[in-house]
């Protein structure tokens, strides 16, 4: 188990350094099983940091989310390092961002947190109701101990964690400068059973399914903004000059948006499932993303966010790449 | 007068004349337009400072100041700098073509309050467009106002708008002080930025009002210099712009603090803007 005091000490140690300008971690949320990403700039603030099964956000997104406005004349940009805490799945985002040269390895200090799973807030709401007080959740291999304002409950891990945690192959960060706990065994292999089940549907049924789902979309772009791999300064979908996708929310534009995003993530999505978690209208976005992940694995034997030396899939070529539609 | 039943409906206007004021990539084109439905004039009235949403069906609309004074009857003038989608589409138009106008919207310069005072207009580049109706209003109502001084600067002499009108100002006895940013051959007037031109001309704040429009950074320094010259915030007026879509205070985006530039503006006194932190952020 990660010792929270040791984690805070480590954070302090990092923030005190002259060559570090900020540290990204989690703090307790304001209600229920919420946690909030927090950006610390001073070592005196580390006591706000937490680490438990509520720490769901993928903090690698905050690395690319940071806005860098033009620096006033006479000032130099602050190029010091950013420290970030990551779980296993989050670390794959960092590797993929490094593969794509979003930043240099030296620009970040990665604090690795082997993770046993994070609470699925929808499942938690079913089990514990609508909570106004913040709750804590400590997890081990089988059980999750919940503390709701001093009221303790225990539940089975499998009943309360996110679906991705049930098939987690990478509980340990694949890149780190410090690892805050000993390694954890992977929880399961991914057989993509959900993808293959969906593939069995008829084209008409698939189309109907997606029509119903995309019809709900309100184009809040939360899925895109939370995604650690969506970091284009100007996104194709919201570009105005020229404008490729209309802003109106009819089924054609909504479908175009989601399909475009799924394609742009092909070979890049590291399956943190944040997009599906944040969607306010519950669109099962991972259906598309996991299909792409599955196809990429089958066709190219490639898994994004694992090997930092591997070139980006769609920016590289192997002679035995399948391309029967060209020749 | 906008269509009362539906303020989103534009009027169709025909371009009577169109000509370029300035050259280059960001050229300025002036359009003289008239309503295709003459009856619109029956309820139309606008005041200097007011604007209209001008555009083309199939493209969109943007906010432009009405660059003609009410005394210029039978037509409206707009001066458009080519920058993006709507302005490029407008630049394609020539005499005989149609565009849309929706307005008038916004407030106007409080010319009634300025009667008897000396007026100084300080314009930069395309910022002269909203000052033009003020100048023409004063010229058309000469005896109601004190002295008129027109200060106007642009990057080069090619970039001055409404070039043909400067000699008329001088003939009528108004001050006309021009400037270019960098010296050029055969330029007999001031060389330097507009805020410096202002200090050179050094108008007296006694019973005077200063009106300025131009790039945001120019406005900022002009206001600083006007204060140095002794103008009180209540004596300084400007007209601002922001991105606009509805033009009628509903879509929300043009706000500066609690003020909507399309409705509470675009004309603001510095006394008002001083109280708004967002105004000079």
């Amino acid at each position, binding site marked *: 188990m990660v010792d929270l005091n040791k984690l805070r000490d480590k954070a302090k140690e990092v923030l005190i350094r002259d060559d570090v300008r900020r540290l990204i971690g989690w703090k307790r949320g304001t209600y229920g099983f*919420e946690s909030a990403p927090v950006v610390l700039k001073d070592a005196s603030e580390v006591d706000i940091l937490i680490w438990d099964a509520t720490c769901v956000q993928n903090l690698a997104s905050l690395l690319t989310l940071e806005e860098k406005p033009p620096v006033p004349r006479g000032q130099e940009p602050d190029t010091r390092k950013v420290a970030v805490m990551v779980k296993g799945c989050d670390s794959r985002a960092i590797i993929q961002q490094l593969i794509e040269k979003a930043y240099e390895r030296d620009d970040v200090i990665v604090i690795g947190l082997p993770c046993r799973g994070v609470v699925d807030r929808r499942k938690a709401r079913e089990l514990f109701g609508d909570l106004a007080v913040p709750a804590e959740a400590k997890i081990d291999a089988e059980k999750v101990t919940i503390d709701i304002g001093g009221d303790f409950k225990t539940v089975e891990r499998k009943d309360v964690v996110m679906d991705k945690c049930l098939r987690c192959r990478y509980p340990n960060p694949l890149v780190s400068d410090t690892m805050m706990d000993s390694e954890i065994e992977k929880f399961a292999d991914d057989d993509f059973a959900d993808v293959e089940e969906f593939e069995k549907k008829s084209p008409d049924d698939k189309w109907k399914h997606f029509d119903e789902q995309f019809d709900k979309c309100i184009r809040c772009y939360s899925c895109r903004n939370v995604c650690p791999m969506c970091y284009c300064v100007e996104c194709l979908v919201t570009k105005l000059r020229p404008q490729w996708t209309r802003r*109106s929310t009819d089924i054609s534009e909504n479908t175009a948006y989601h399909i475009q995003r799924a394609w742009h993530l092909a070979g890049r999505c590291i399956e943190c499932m*944040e997009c599906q978690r944040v969607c306010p209208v*519950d669109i099962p976005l991972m259906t598309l993303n996991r299909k792409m992940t599955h196809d990429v694995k089958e066709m190219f034997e490639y898994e994004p966010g694992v090997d930092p030396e591997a070139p980006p899939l769609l920016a590289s070529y192997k002679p035995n790449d399948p391309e029967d539609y060209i020749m | 007068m906008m269509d009362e039943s539906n303020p989103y409906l534009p009027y169709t206007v025909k371009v009577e004349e169109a000509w370029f004021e300035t050259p280059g990539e960001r050229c300025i084109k002036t359009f003289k337009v008239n309503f295709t439905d003459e009856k619109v004039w029956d309820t139309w009235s606008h005041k200097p400072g007011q604007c209209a949403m001008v555009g083309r069906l199939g493209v969109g609309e943007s906010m432009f100041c009405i660059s003609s004074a009410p005394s210029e009857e039978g037509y409206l003038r707009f001066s458009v700098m080519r920058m993006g989608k709507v302005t490029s589409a407008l630049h394609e138009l020539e005499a005989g073509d149609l565009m849309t106008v929706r307005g008038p919207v916004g407030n106007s310069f409080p010319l009634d309050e300025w009667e008897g005072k000396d007026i100084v207009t300080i314009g930069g580049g395309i910022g002269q467009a909203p000052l033009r109706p003020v100048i023409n209003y004063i010229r058309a109502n000469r005896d109601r106002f004190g002295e008129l001084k027109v200060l106007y600067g642009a990057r080069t002499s090619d970039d001055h708008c409404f070039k043909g009108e400067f000699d008329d100002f001088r003939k009528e006895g108004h001050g006309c002080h021009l400037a270019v940013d960098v010296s050029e051959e055969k330029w007999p007037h001031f060389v330097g930025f507009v805020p410096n031109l202002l200090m050179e001309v050094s108008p007296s704040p006694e019973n005077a009002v200063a009106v300025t429009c131009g790039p945001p950074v120019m406005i900022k320094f002009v206001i600083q210099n006007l204060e140095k010259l002794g103008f009180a915030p209540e004596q300084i007026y400007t007209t601002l712009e*922001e991105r606009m879509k509805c033009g*009628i*205070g*509903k879509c929300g985006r043009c706000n500066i603090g609690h003020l909507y530039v399309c409705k509470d503006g675009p004309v603001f006194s510095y006394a008002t803007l001083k109280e708004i932190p967002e105004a000079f952020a």
Partner: protein
Amino acid sequence: MGDFKFAKEKLTDVLSALKDFKVFAPVKTDGVVRFQEVADPAQVSLDYSNSNVPPKELMFPETETLFRYRLGGTDLDVANPAEGPKRVIFGIRPCDAQAFSIVDNLYGWDFPDPYFQGRRANTVLVGLACADPCANCFCPSVGGSPASEDNVDAMMFDLGDTIYLKGLTDRGEEIASAISGAVEAAGDAEKKAAAGQAEEASGKIQRSIDTSGIPEKLPSLYDHPFWEQFSDRCLGCGICTFLCPTCHCFDIQDEVEQFDCRRARMWDTCMFSEYSLHTSGHNPRPTRKERTRNRISHKYSYFPTKFDVIACVGCGRCINYCPVNIDILDILEKSKQAEAKEEQTA
């Protein structure tokens, strides 16, 4: 004014009696509730806390046509939102109804918006009082209450097996007469139970904020660094604004489809960077710090400065759905604690 009651299991009969109206009600699909036009009364469920997307989408649709035209033509075919049968929003929560009254101020300001006003005039609101406010509800802090009858034409109270319906306005009476065949007169028992429920519900509200002084204080905190605490993690998405019942900003775009064109408006959000981006590239609110500050200031300072009412109804959706737990009550509490410049230098 009439007071009625009907058994909850007879809800489908009551809805069927409204056949001359276009009825919108909460429909639960895959566990998620959203207001929809009711095709089959059996789909309607009054057993819900609140919809994810607020019923503002019924008065101010996410995308709507302003007018149509032919490319190259000048005739405008103007959409008429008040066309068709009278509409009923059946089962709207008091907070969402209060939001309409708040937004009326802006949509009726100077140039009345015929699309919004047209729908408003053609819609009857039948409210559903809250028996169990959700954890993040704070309507009493912003002038509302779980059973507020101020902004609806009729109010229903879910008393368990029975629904008690109170007609409140003339338009509410219209509804009452339409459904008179499917309901019975209510008596003192129902009235008393409803009043009791309303009082209990107010007691169940768990979160609050004292808003006095906030509208005046926020502009003085313009340069204060406390905004960064929130903007640092803001994703810049549209969830808080799109799910907010009082947010009303929109974009207008021309859409050309060969020769058939329309000018449409669609929801926009001050959280997107393009919202205030000038064509020149200048953006008066270039980063999320400015945009976050603007959003909160608009709701709790600018709007009240203009219209004397805070543009928030305490529905809690922004808190419930923000992916990074940016909590408006947290922001407001911190703003109260933050020292304004004058206080700092004193």
